[in-house]
């Protein structure tokens, strides 16, 4: 079959309209999980089919797409989603956060500040933040509608009781605009502050669970905590060994079987740009004379 046989962005227009309606509803009610009729995509669940459908519904031919997985543009997942949209939508792609108009992400928010001209699409595995403690969907829906969120703090209480501190380090729950409690997808809690007051539109798509939710630009997003155990956006206490950045989120990489480790920016675009601009880290190759 020739590649032109695909409708723009793979999904048919009617499906895209349905998804756009869900997105608009999500933007109108920030943090609220809007049900949508998720479609089969030519990739397995867990590969971001929710994010892919949201991206497909948002893309225009003029867009420049960036796809990241754990901050990296070159992982299998990121590469295959990017090439999927190159084939089915023919859109331009980029690795540079600044140049992208739409960024689909799994597990990270880029380090570079986002702008009003950008949309950030998150891939979400489990959209329901109350699920772990209240498995009944009828009950969690009621809890959201009545704003009964005491259970979220029970979860954090359990964390502190067991670990001496809030050990939740990914998918750290937030309250949106003082109303809905939301799962920000499994981003590190280091990224949580970037959810707040963000100029870009943030969209969240859960394919298997058939939910879309959204944060309009400049939404107020607060990470839940206790007065005596305040939220801390922690990261590894190191600088990047490649670019020397002391403020970016780091991945720990094992470099040999003697237990040698290095810390590198998880955001490959951010790190690469710094290195290109002459920044150096502990393990950078010596400067050419």
């Amino acid at each position, binding site marked *: 079959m020739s590649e032109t046989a695909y409708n723009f962005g793979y999904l048919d227009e009617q499906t895209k309209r349905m998804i756009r309606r869900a997105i608009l509803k999500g933007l109108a009610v920030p943090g609220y999980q809007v049900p949508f009729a998720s479609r089969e995509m030519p990739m397995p669940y867990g590969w971001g089919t929710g994010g892919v459908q949201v991206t497909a519904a948002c893309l225009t031919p003029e867009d420049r797409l960036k796809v990241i997985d754990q901050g990296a543009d070159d992982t299998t997942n990121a590469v295959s989603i990017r090439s999927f949209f190159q084939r089915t939508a023919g859109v331009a792609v980029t690795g540079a956060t600044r140049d992208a108009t739409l960024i689909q992400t799994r597990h990270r928010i880029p380090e570079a500040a986002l702008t009003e001209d950008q949309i950030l699409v998150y891939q979400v595995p489990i959209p329901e933040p109350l699920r772990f*403690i209240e498995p009944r969907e009828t009950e969690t829906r009621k809890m959201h509608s*009545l704003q*009964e969120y005491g259970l979220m703090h*029970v979860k954090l*209480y359990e964390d*502190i*009781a067991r670990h001496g501190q809030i050990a939740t380090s990914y998918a750290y729950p937030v309250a949106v605009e003082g109303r809905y409690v939301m799962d920000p997808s499994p981003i590190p809690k280091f990224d949580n502050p970037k959810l707040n007051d963000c100029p870009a539109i943030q969209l969240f798509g859960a394919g298997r669970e058939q939910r879309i939710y959204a944060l309009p630009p400049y939404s107020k997003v607060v990470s839940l905590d206790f*007065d005596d155990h305040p939220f801390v956006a922690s990261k590894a206490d190191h600088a990047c060994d490649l670019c020397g950045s002391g403020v970016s989120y780091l991945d720990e990489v094992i470099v040999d079987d003697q237990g040698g480790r290095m810390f590198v920016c998880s955001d490959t675009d951010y790190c690469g740009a710094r290195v290109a601009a002459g920044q150096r880290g502990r393990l950078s190759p010596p400067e050419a004379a």
Partner: protein
Amino acid sequence: MPAEQMDIFASKKALAAPLLSVQGLTKRYGARIGCADVSFDLYPGEVMGIVGESGSGKSTLLSCLAGHMAPDAGSVVFQTAAGPRDTVRMSEPERRMLARTDWAFVHQNPRDGLRMGVSAGGNVGERLMAVGARHYGGIREKATDWLGRVEIAADRIDDRPSQFSGGMQQRLQIARNLVTGPRLVFMDEPTGGLDVSVQARLLDLLRGLVRQMGLSAIIVTHDLAVVRLLADRLMVMKGGQVVEQGLTDQVLDDPQHGYTQLLVSSVLQV
């Protein structure tokens, strides 16, 4: 003695409006009657027992009173902080708010009233957090205090209820319910599934708490020993109807209705 009690009862009535005033409460399951035309007043600080054989409508009545089930007819007027309100006609959010502030509900089976996957401390702290407590140290202190009050050792605070005995689970459920100082406690067979020796200890504990806190409570049981120990007043149900009600000692010592006489005598034979 009964006359003296009557006086106390009368002066209570004169002093305060009823905490709960129930009129014509009726619930059917299709053609079957759950409970029919039940009316009574409960005054602040009073404990009322509801007795009757299995299937007599006790649980149905309690569920309607506590807002777990919508009755087909009747009203349940509760004295809220903002005055008397018919909880049957309240919106669900308002009713759920009452359920986690002014009311408490102790289930017969602790599994229905506890979160089995959450530590004892988390179980006790939940209601505090539900009404806005956000200081971990403060929540933990209160949970520790309440575990002590229901005779659970402080070092069990981080254990899950699944590691507790049946009696401990029930005491934990009581702590979890009373920690926010509710004004009205509903209990459905609170000593039901327990061994006799464990029952006695739980009853003692409940009696102490009810007295200390001046709790108002409605206790469903088929065990007359429970009402004798805890209840100021007694309501006897049969086939969904209230056949007799009055001061506990009066009803038990001088039952008027033939069914109550049977109930009492069968206990005495044990």
